C-alpha cells in the first residue's frame, strides 16, 4: 500500500467511525447523545402528602432539620406525640447543598397518592383514568433511562424501591409499545419481603457448585432444544443472567441478615424506626451494593395525617432524618460520592382546611384534594461544581412533570426521548 492509499483508507476509516451510529452491546443502535451532569441520580419521593405549611413554612417549628435550615422550636402541644430521634447525621441541612424550590407545584390532575407517584415517575400528568392494576400507560423514567442511556442499560442500574406492593409495582414499566417491560426498573418492596416469615419461600435456596451447574446447563440446554411450543424468554426479561446472579446473591444476603437480626434497628433509633426509615435503609443497601445510576425510593408514613395529625408530624421528622441518612450514605459510598444528584419532593400536598378527625393532642387531620394540595417543594442537592448551592427559589417555579426531564437531562438522555412523551422542562435553574 502506498502512502496515498494508506492516507485515504485511514481517513475513510476515521470518517466512518464518526459517521456511523454506534451499535451498543445492548443491541441498541444509538447511544445517548447528551452530556451527563453527574452519573447517578437518586430521587426520593417524600410521599404521603406533605404540606408546605408544616415543611418549608415550619408552622409547627422545624420538623425537618435534616432538609431545611432553622431552629424554630416545635409546638409545645404536640411534643408529647413525637418519638426520640438521633440528631441529624449531616453537619448542615441539605438545602445548603443545593437548590430549594419553595413554591413547586404538583400541576394538573387530581392530587391522589398513586396519581402523584405516577406523575412523578412518568413525567406525565395523570388523572383518575389511570389503572391501579396494570402497568402505567405512559413510559416511566426507568424505561427512558434504560432505552436511551449510553453507559449501561443494566437492570441493576435502575431501581424502584417502594415501601409497599400493590399499585406501586405498576410503575416499574409501562404498556407503551416503544418501551415496556424489557426496560423496567428492578422493583423491590423490602418491607413486604423481609417481614419475618414472608421470605420463607426463598430462604432455603440450594446453591449448586460450578460442576453441578455445568451439568444442569447441559441438560437444560438439551431440554430446551426439544421444546417447540415457544421459548420462554422470561416474563419480563428485566435482568440478564449474570445480573440475575448478583440479584440472587443480594436478596439471599438480605434474607440472611434479616434472619440474623442485622436489619433490626440498623440506625440505633430503637422503636422510633418506622417503615419509611426501613425503606430508606434498604435503598441504602442497594446503593452500597450496586451503585445504581438511577434509584427512586418513596416514603408514605406521613399519610397518617388523615386521622392523626400529630403522628404525621412525627413521621415527617422521621422521613427527614431518613433523607439525611440517605444523603450521608451516598456521600460515603465510593463511586457515588460527589457524583450523585439527590432530588427530594412530595408527590402532592394536603388540604388547607382540616377534616373533622381529632387526635389525642387535639389536632385535626388533613385530607388532600383541594388547590393547596398542589403546593409542594422540591430540593435538588449535589456536588458544588454541578448544583447551585444554598439557593432558594421563592417564586412559583417548576412542577412535578419537570422531574423526569430533569433526571433525563442530568443523565444525558433528554434529547433522545421523543418530544411528545414529555411536556415538562428540566429544572436547569438548580444546575451550575
Amino acid at each position: 500500500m502506498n502512502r496515498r492509499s494508506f492516507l485515504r483508507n485511514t481517513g475513510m476509516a476515521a470518517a466512518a467511525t464518526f459517521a456511523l451510529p454506534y451499535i451498543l452491546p445492548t443491541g441498541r443502535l444509538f447511544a445517548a447523545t447528551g452530556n451527563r451532569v453527574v452519573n447517578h441520580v437518586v430521587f426520593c419521593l417524600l410521599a404521603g402528602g406533605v404540606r408546605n405549611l408544616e415543611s418549608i413554612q415550619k408552622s409547627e417549628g422545624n420538623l425537618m432539620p435534616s432538609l431545611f435550615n432553622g431552629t424554630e422550636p416545635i409546638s409545645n402541644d404536640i411534643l408529647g406525640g413525637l418519638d426520640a430521634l438521633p440528631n441529624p447525621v449531616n453537619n448542615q441541612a441539605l438545602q445548603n447543598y443545593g437548590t430549594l424550590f419553595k413554591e413547586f407545584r404538583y400541576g394538573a390532575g387530581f392530587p391522589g397518592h398513586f396519581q402523584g407517584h405516577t406523575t412523578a415517575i412518568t413525567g406525565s400528568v395523570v388523572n383518575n383514568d389511570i389503572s391501579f392494576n396494570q402497568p402505567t400507560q405512559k413510559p416511566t423514567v426507568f424505561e427512558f433511562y434504560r432505552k436511551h442511556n449510553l453507559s449501561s442499560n443494566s437492570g441493576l442500574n435502575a431501581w424502584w424501591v417502594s415501601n409497599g406492593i400493590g399499585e406501586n409495582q405498576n410503575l416499574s414499566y409501562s404498556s407503551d409499545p416503544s418501551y415496556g417491560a424489557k426496560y423496567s426498573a428492578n422493583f423491590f418492596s423490602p418491607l413486604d419481603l423481609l417481614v419475618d416469615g414472608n421470605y420463607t419461600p426463598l430462604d432455603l435456596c440450594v446453591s449448586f457448585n460450578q460442576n453441578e451447574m455445568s451439568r444442569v446447563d447441559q441438560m437444560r440446554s438439551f431440554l430446551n432444544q426439544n421444546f417447540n411450543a415457544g421459548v420462554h424468554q422470561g416474563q419480563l426479561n428485566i435482568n440478564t443472567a449474570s445480573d440475575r446472579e448478583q440479584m440472587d446473591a443480594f436478596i439471599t444476603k438480605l434474607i440472611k441478615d434479616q434472619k440474623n437480626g442485622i436489619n433490626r434497628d440498623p440506625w440505633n433509633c430503637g422503636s422510633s424506626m418506622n417503615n419509611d426509615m426501613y425503606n430508606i435503609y434498604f435503598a441504602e443497601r442497594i446503593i452500597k451494593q450496586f451503585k445504581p445510576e438511577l434509584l427512586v425510593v418513596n416514603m408514605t408514613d406521613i399519610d397518617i395525617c388523615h386521622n392523626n395529625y400529630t403522628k404525621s408530624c412525627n413521621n415527617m421528622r422521621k422521613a427527614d432524618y431518613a433523607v439525611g441518612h440517605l444523603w450521608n450514605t451516598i456521600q460515603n459510598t465510593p463511586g457515588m460520592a460527589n457524583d450523585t444528584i439527590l432530588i427530594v419532593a412530595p408527590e402532592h400536598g394536603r388540604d388547607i382546611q382540616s377534616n373533622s378527625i381529632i387526635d389525642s393532642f387535639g389536632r385535626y387531620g388533613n385530607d388532600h384534594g383541594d388547590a393547596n394540595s398542589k403546593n409542594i417543594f422540591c430540593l435538588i442537592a449535589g456536588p458544588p461544581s454541578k448544583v447551585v448551592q444554598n439557593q432558594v427559589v421563592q417564586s412559583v417555579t417548576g412542577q412535578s412533570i419537570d422531574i423526569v426531564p430533569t433526571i433525563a437531562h442530568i443523565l444525558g438522555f433528554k434529547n433522545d426521548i421523543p418530544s411528545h412523551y414529555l411536556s415538562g422542562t428540566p429544572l436547569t435553574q438548580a444546575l451550575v
Partner: protein
Amino acid sequence: MNFWEYNKTIALKVSTLLLCVLLMTTSSCKKDLSIYEINEVHVSNSNIDKNGLKKDIEFVSQAYSDLFEKPISGGALEEAIIAFNAIGDRDLVRDMMIRDLLNKSTLSLPDRTTINADVDLFVNKTYKKFYKRLPAPFELFSLRNMIIQNQDMQAKEIYYAFMTANEYNYF
C-alpha cells in the same frame, strides 16, 4: 295468624336475614386465593399442544405439587405471592423458589443407586412428573446417556434442570 304463628314467622324472617348477613360478612372477609390441587393428569406423548404460559401462582402451585405430591398450603401460597410481588424480577423469584423447594428436608429424592437401578424408568418418571408426558425415544436415549455418563449428577440437579427449562413454564 295468631300471636305464636306471627312470632314464628317474624323469628324465621329474622333468622334468615341474620344467616344472610352472616354468610355475606364471612364470605367477604376471605381473600380469593386459588389453590391448585392435584388432579388426574392426562399423560401425553408430545409437547406440541403446550402453549399456555403458567402464571406465577400456577407455577409455584404446580412446582410444589409435582415435588411433594400434595397441594401447597394456603399460607405457603400466600407467602409465595408476596415474594412474587415484592421482587420485580419474577424469573428470579421462580428460580429461587424452585431451589428452595428442592432444598426442603421434607422432600424425598431418589438417590443415585435408585436411579442407576433403572435409568429408563427414572427418565420416564421424571418426564411424567414435570412435563406430564412420556419422553420421545430420542429424548429417552439422550437423557439416559447424560445420566449414565455423569455419575455424580444427583436427582436434585436433574429436577432443577427440568423445572427451569422452558417447557416447565407451559401447560
